[in-house]
C-alpha cells in the first residue's frame, strides 16, 4: 500500500513539476514575445523622427525647395503607416505659408478635393487655416531655441500628435531657418496602426511559438486583442508610452499641451504547444499512475488475502496433524502398557479383567478416530454413498451409548435419555447417523470437564424430528460457534485433544440428510447441539436423489 501511495505521489509530483516547468517556459516565451513586441513598437514609433526628420536635416533638405522632400516623404509614408502628413516651412526666402504633404491614398478631411487628382503617393498643398493654427504654436518653440517642437493639437476635427524638427541659421538658435515635421492622427493609430503592427509582428515571429498579443490603453480598454493574463494563462506585460518620437527629446522640459499616455502590450502563451503537450502528458501520466496504483493495490490485497488464507490453512493442518498423531498414539501406548502388564504375569484375575476392559476402551477410541478419518474422506468425496432408509433414533442412540458405555461408566457420567415412544423413524443412512451421534456424544464427553452430565433428547416437530445432545461442559465462545463446523477447526478453549473433524462430519451428514444443525452454547454452562432430520414418510428432494443413485 505504501508503494502504491508512493507511486501515485511520485506520479502526481512529476505531473505537477512538469506542468510548472511548461508554464515557466511558456511564461518566459510570453515575456520574450512581449519584449519583442515592445522593441518593434518603440523602434517603429520613433522611426519617423529618428530616420526621416534627422536624415532630411542632415542632407540639408529642409532648406531646399519643397519638391526635394517629395521622395523622402513618399518613402516615409510607405515605411511608417502612422504618418498622416508632413509639413515644411522655410524662412528664407519668406514663402507664403507652410507646405503640407499628405498621403494620396488616405487624404485628411481638411484637404480640398482638387488636390486629390494625381497618382503620386504624396499630395503637396498649402492650407491657410491649418497653417494659422500650427505655425504660432511651433513659433513658440522656435523663440525658445528648442530643437524639436512636439505637442498634441486638434486640427480639422482630428487630434494629432505633432513632431517638428526646428532648424536655425545660427549656432545660438536665434535665427530660425526652417521647420520640418509630421502629424499622426491618434484616432487612426488607435483603430489601425496597432492592429496591423501586432498582426505583422506575429507573422514575422510565426512558427516559433503560439503567442497571442494584445494592447490595452491607459484606461484599460482593449485596443488590440482580448487576451488577459490570469493565474491560468501564462503571460507577460510591458508598458510603453503612446508617443511617436523618442521620449528623451522632451524628458527635460515636457510641453504642457502634450499628453503622454501609458499603454500596455500583453503577450500570452495560452496556446503554447509546450503547455498543450504538458497538459496532455499530465493527463496520460496521471491516468497511467492511477491505473497502475489500482492494479498494484488490488494485487497487494489479493496477495495478502492468499498469504493469510495459506497461513491459516497451514496452521490448521499442523494442528490437525499434531492432534491426530496424539489421538492415535495415546490409545496405542495405553494398549501397549496394558499388554506389557498382562504379559508380565504379575496380575490377578481381577486386575486382568480390569486391564482387559481398559484395553477395549482404548481400542474403541482408536477405532472411532480411524472411523472418523475414513468417514470424512468418504463423505466428502462420495456423497452419494448413503443408503437411506427409515431409521428409529432409539436404535441409533442405544448403539452409540453402548459403544460409549465403558467411558461413561468409567468417568461417572449422569446420563439422561428422553426419547418419546411415538417418535417416528427418520429418513437416514444408519451408519452415517450413528457416526453423527457418536461424534456428538464424544464431544460432549470430551469437553465435559468437571460436570459429567449428558442428555440425549428427541421430539417431533411437524414433519421433522429434533435430536438434541446436551452437556454441562466448558461451552463454546459465541464468536467461534459459526466456525466450529469447519474442518480442522478447534476451539480456543479446546485442550482436550480431538482431530477437529467431528463437527465438520456432523455438519456434512446433516446437510446430506436435508436437515439443519443448530448449536447453542454458553461458556462455562454447556452446549446443546440440535439436529433436525426429516421423518421417514416425508423424504426431501436431496435424500430422494441420493437414494436413487
Amino acid at each position, binding site marked *: 500500500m505504501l508503494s502504491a501511495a508512493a507511486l501515485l505521489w511520485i506520479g502526481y509530483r512529476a505531473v505537477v513539476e512538469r506542468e510548472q516547468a511548461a508554464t515557466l517556459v511558456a511564461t518566459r516565451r510570453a515575456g520574450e514575445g512581449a519584449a519583442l513586441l515592445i522593441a518593434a513598437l518603440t523602434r517603429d514609433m520613433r522611426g519617423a523622427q529618428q530616420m526621416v526628420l534627422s536624415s532630411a536635416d542632415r542632407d540639408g533638405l529642409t532648406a531646399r525647395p519643397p519638391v526635394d522632400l517629395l521622395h523622402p516623404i513618399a518613402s516615409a509614408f510607405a515605411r511608417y503607416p502612422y504618418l498622416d502628413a508632413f509639413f515644411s516651412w522655410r524662412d528664407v526666402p519668406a514663402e507664403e505659408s507652410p507646405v503640407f504633404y499628405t498621403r494620396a491614398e488616405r487624404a485628411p478631411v481638411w484637404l480640398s478635393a482638387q488636390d486629390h487628382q494625381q497618382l503620386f503617393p504624396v499630395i503637396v498643398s498649402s492650407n491657410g487655416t491649418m497653417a494659422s493654427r500650427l505655425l504660432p504654436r511651433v513659433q513658440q518653440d522656435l523663440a525658445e531655441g528648442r530643437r524639436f517642437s512636439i505637442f498634441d493639437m486638434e486640427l480639422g476635427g482630428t487630434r494629432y500628435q505633432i513632431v517638428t524638427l526646428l532648424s536655425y541659421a545660427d549656432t545660438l538658435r536665434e535665427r530660425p531657418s526652417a521647420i520640418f515635421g509630421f502629424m499622426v492622427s491618434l484616432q487612426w493609430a488607435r483603430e489601425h496602426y496597432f492592429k*496591423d503592427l501586432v498582426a505583422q509582428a506575429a507573422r*514575422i515571429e510565426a512558427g516559433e511559438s503560439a503567442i497571442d498579443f494584445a494592447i490595452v490603453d491607459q484606461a484599460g480598454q482593449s485596443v488590440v486583442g482580448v487576451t488577459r493574463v490570469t493565474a491560468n494563462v501564462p503571460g507577460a506585460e510591458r508598458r510603453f508610452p503612446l508617443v511617436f518620437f523618442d521620449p528623451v527629446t522632451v524628458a527635460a522640459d515636457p510641453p504642457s499641451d502634450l499628453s503622454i499616455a501609458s499603454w500596455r502590450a500583453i503577450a500570452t502563451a495560452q496556446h503554447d504547444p509546450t503547455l498543450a503537450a504538458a497538459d496532455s502528458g499530465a493527463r496520460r501520466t496521471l491516468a497511467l499512475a492511477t491505473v497502475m496504483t489500482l492494479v498494484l493495490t488490488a494485487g497487494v490485497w489479493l496477495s495478502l488475502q492468499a498469504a493469510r488464507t495459506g497461513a491459516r490453512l497451514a496452521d490448521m493442518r499442523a494442528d490437525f496433524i499434531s492432534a491426530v498423531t496424539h489421538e492415535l498414539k495415546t490409545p496405542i501406548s495405553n494398549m501397549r502398557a496394558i499388554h506389557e502388564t498382562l504379559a508380565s504375569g504379575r496380575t490377578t484375575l481381577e486386575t486382568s479383567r480390569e486391564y482387559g476392559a481398559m484395553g477395549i476402551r482404548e481400542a474403541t477410541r482408536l477405532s472411532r478416530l480411524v472411523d472418523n478419518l475414513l468417514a470424512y474422506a468418504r463423505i466428502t468425496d462420495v456423497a452419494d454413498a448413503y443408503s437411506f432408509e427409515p431409521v428409529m433414533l432409539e436404535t441409533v442412540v442405544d448403539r452409540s451409548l453402548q459403544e460409549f458405555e465403558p467411558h461413561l461408566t468409567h468417568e461417572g457420567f449422569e446420563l439422561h435419555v428422553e426419547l418419546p415412544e411415538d417418535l417416528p423413524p427418520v429418513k437416514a443412512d444408519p451408519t452415517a447417523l450413528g457416526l453423527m451421534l457418536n461424534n456428538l456424544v464424544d464431544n460432549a464427553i470430551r469437553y465435559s470437564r468437571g460436570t459429567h452430565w449428558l442428555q440425549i433428547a428427541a421430539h417431533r416437530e411437524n414433519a421433522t424430528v429434533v435430536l438434541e445432545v446436551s452437556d454441562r461442559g466448558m461451552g463454546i465462545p459465541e464468536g467461534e460457534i459459526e466456525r466450529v463446523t469447519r474442518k480442522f477447526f478447534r476451539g480456543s478453549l479446546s485442550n482436550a485433544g480431538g482431530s477437529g473433524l467431528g463437527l465438520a462430519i456432523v455438519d456434512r451428514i446433516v446437510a446430506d440428510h436435508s436437515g439443519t444443525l443448530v448449536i447453542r452454547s454458553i461458556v462455562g454452562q454447556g452446549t446443546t447441539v440440535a439436529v433436525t432430520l426429516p421423518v421417514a414418510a416425508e423424504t426431501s428432494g436431496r435424500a430422494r436423489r441420493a437414494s436413487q443413485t
Partner: protein
Amino acid sequence: MTAVIREGAYIIPIEGPPVEKLRRENPFVRVVRVPRDIYAGQDRIFPTLGIDMVVVCREDLDESLVYALTAQLFEAFPRLSGVEANLRFLNLDEAPATPIPLHAGAARYFRERELSR
C-alpha cells in the same frame, strides 16, 4: 553616348527655374547629378533630369505573388548591381517612394522590412 561625344556632341547641365516648375507639376521627375568620368571627356559633375526605375504590375495581381516578387527582387539586388551599373546608385531606403501607388503586396514587403530591421 560615348561615340556621339567623340564625334563632337557635348553634355549640357539641365537646371534652373524651368526645372523646378517641371518638377512641381511632375513630382516623379528627379534632379540627378551625373558623377564625374561617366562619359568620355566628362571632367565634372553635372545636373540633369532623371526618373526612377519602376517595376509596374496590374493592381489586381495576387498580393502574395507581388510580395514574393518584391522580396526576390530585393534579395537579388546585391548580385544584380554587379551586372547593371545603374543599380549601384540605388537608395534602398527610398525604394518605396514610387511615382505611382504601391501594390498591396509590395507595401507589405516594405512594411515588414521596416519592422525586421
